């Protein structure tokens, strides 16, 4: 079964450092998403991406965050200068085009620990 893959599975970084989380969405999917989940809390929307541009973003997704799809395969989330409160699980998800299913398929997540 097709799956969304994420790397790394766990990253530990110092506050103020840049972090890049990588995702390989399902190959025929066109919509891509990043969500995060702080430990013990609900999954929160960060950003959606379609046709090589951001289509929606939440209040969490401030200027410290950016996304790109540099090579048509990987979908990356960059945090420019990490803060302690960025510690969370970050989930990538993808979805087929609007004529397809509404269901998002999630990756297993990347755990980010900011010290």
């Amino acid at each position: 079964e097709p799956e969304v893959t994420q790397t790394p599975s766990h990253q530990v970084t110092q506050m103020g450092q840049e972090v890049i989380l990588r995702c390989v969405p399902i190959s025929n999917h066109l919509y891509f998403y990043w969500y995060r989940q702080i430990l013990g809390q609900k999954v929160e929307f960060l950003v959606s991406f379609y046709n090589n541009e951001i289509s929606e973003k939440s209040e969490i997704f401030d200027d410290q965050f950016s996304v790109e799809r540099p090579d048509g395969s990987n979908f990356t989330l960059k945090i420019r200068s990490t803060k302690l409160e960025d510690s969370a699980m970050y989930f990538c998800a993808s979805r087929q085009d609007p004529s397809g299913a509404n269901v998002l398929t999630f990756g297993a997540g990347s755990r980010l620990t900011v010290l």
Partner: protein
Amino acid sequence: GESVGLHLPTLSVQEGDNSIINCAYSNSASDYFIWYKQESGKGPQFIIDIRSNMDKRQGQRVTVLLNKTVKHLSLQIAATQPGDSAVYFCAEINSGSARQLTFGSGTQLTVLP
């Protein structure tokens, strides 16, 4: 603001019993709802979905009920098994172009032997 939330944070059931997990939503404009299961250390996994023009949908061992009058969603799991132990989230899809999900707070289901 509008949100999706769950009534109970934890639920314990005996193996073999039926489980019912509830969810309240407040965005009457939502047109699509999904239940996700999240096992420890894993990403959310799709269980079942329902459109707002339906009030019931059945899958394998799972049934989702939608009551738009009171903005209530429930997930019923028949003959609950140990492998069903997980956190269950309801989520709504907004009507925007990106069709992003808004998740509820989650219910931890524990299946007792």
